[in-house]
């Protein structure tokens, strides 16, 4: 048993070395197939992050009426913070609103001078507000209803259009994100199918090139398992080498893509290398397992026809 096991290893190693070009081609195809899978992982990661970023950037403001005291504001803030639909509530004073507005329109001198004119009358066109962020983008309608029904409804003004716009936008965003996900799944499916077909056909060709050898092995009395085992072992080896190559490519590619991703998701970026680090086992061992199982099944199917005694 042990002697046979050792021989199988030896034959597999010999076959790998003596058919080095075939081995390189097999490994290259496996690398390409795994590259496709990793490309899809990054694509899905960035798509999900993009959707997350858009959702994160959405918030609504309610504006306090002019004669409201700070105590009332604090009370209201505390009250609505406890809502099951609300993630965060930030208070923005009238002065801060004015400053924000000025910064935003720093280039528009006419607008700024108009604001200065108003300030001379010691009046601020802006009022204090609460910036509300929902736990989920679909919850803004519920928040609006809660606010309208609350006992504090007289303290602030709600721009219902703002909420309705968000409701509409929410619907659109959910639709778009669903479509993007659906598209990503279809794309993943198609690419995975292409990758699998590539691997299957490469293994089929590799076994086909060995068909005469398989015939000779049968003639000299080799059993089915004795013939199959070195092929299976080699395929496992191809997969391991391909995985090592792909890990290198993914980490180098991740480092290369990071500045582009940072620029794309300003303030909401995702670190690709960290992502792969923290999911290393699931991503890479998962791929190894998947590619090994698939390529072994492919080779068993391909070799079967040449093994008939």
């Amino acid at each position, binding site marked *: 048993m042990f*002697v*046979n096991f050792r*021989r199988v290893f030896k034959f597999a190693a*010999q*076959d790998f070395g*003596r*058919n080095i070009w075939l081995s390189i081609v097999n490994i290259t195809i496996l690398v390409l197939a795994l590259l496709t899978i990793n490309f899809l992982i990054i694509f899905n990661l960035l798509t999900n992050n993009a959707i997350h970023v858009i959702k994160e950037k959405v918030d609504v403001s309610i504006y306090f009426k002019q004669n409201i005291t700070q105590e009332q504001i604090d009370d209201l803030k505390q009250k609505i913070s406890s809502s099951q639909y609300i993630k965060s509530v930030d208070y923005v004073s009238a002065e801060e609103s004015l400053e924000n507005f000025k910064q935003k329109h720093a280039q528009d001198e006419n607008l700024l001078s108009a604001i200065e004119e108003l300030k001379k009358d010691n009046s601020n066109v802006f009022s204090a507000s609460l910036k509300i962020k929902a736990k989920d983008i679909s919850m803004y309608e519920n928040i609006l209803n809660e606010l309208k029904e609350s006992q504090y409804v007289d303290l602030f003004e709600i721009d219902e259009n703002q909420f309705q716009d968000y409701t509409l936008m929410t619907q659109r965003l959910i639709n778009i994100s669903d479509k993007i996900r659906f598209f990503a799944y279809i794309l993943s499916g198609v690419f995975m199918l292409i990758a699998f077909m590539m691997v299957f056909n490469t293994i089929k060709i590799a076994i086909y090139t060995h068909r*005469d*050898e398989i*015939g*000779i*092995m*049968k*003639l*000299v*009395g*080799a*059993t*089915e398992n*004795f013939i199959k085992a070195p092929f299976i072992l080699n395929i496992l080896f191809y997969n391991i080498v391909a995985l090592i190559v792909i890990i290198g490519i993914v980490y180098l590619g991740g480092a290369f893509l990071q500045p582009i991703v940072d620029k794309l998701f300003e303030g909401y970026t995702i670190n690709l290398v960290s992502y792969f680090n923290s999911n290393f086992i699931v991503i890479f061992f998962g791929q190894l397992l998947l590619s090994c199982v698939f390529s072994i099944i492919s080779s068993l199917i391909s070799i079967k026809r040449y093994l*008939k*005694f």
Partner: protein
Amino acid sequence: MIKLDNVSKFYKPDVWAVNKVSLDIDPGEFVSIVGQSGTGKSTLAKLLFAEERPTEGTIEIGGWDITDIKQHEVPYLRRQIGFIFQDFKLLPKKNIYENISFAMQTSGIDDDKIKKVLPQILKIVGLQHKAERYPNQLSGGEQQRAAIARSLVHQPKLLIADEPTGNLDSINSREIIDLLLRINHLNTTVILVTHNRDIVNSLNRRVVTMEGGRIISDQKRGRYIL
């Protein structure tokens, strides 16, 4: 040793490659099976090492009825029979030593025994100095000798040679036939499938002549009569 009883082999759509052949071969015999191309000689050889199954009849080798031999039993049958072919059938990516040792390794023979026996076999076929060469680095005659060496590793009681001189010149052909005769002298039954008239006539051994899938002549000390 070998007993074929009314053996036929049919190929679709309408070819009887071997047709009701009955043949008894005793241990230690040297039998030439002759006939023109397409007369069923090679099919008969294939039936003997279970590469084909008979459509009708029974085949017995050394008391083992291989008519309906199971897939998993075939390797064990083949380890008891030696074969050589016109195209040598050596593994191209293994050197001569590895080609021959592979046949021993398939049956789990340990490395020490292989190291002991293999040089002796290489010496018998005169390839002891070319063991490290690959098949494509040898002449046709040398390749055929390597194939014979491989067929001897299990010390078979039966050796089937299917057109072993088909790819060789007359000098190499003679060498191979002499080698087969020496093996036969060691009490191994040899079945030589050939259509080489000169070789058959020079042997002065039993000749079975086939035509149209049937045996038309079986002479104890025969000649090529077609």
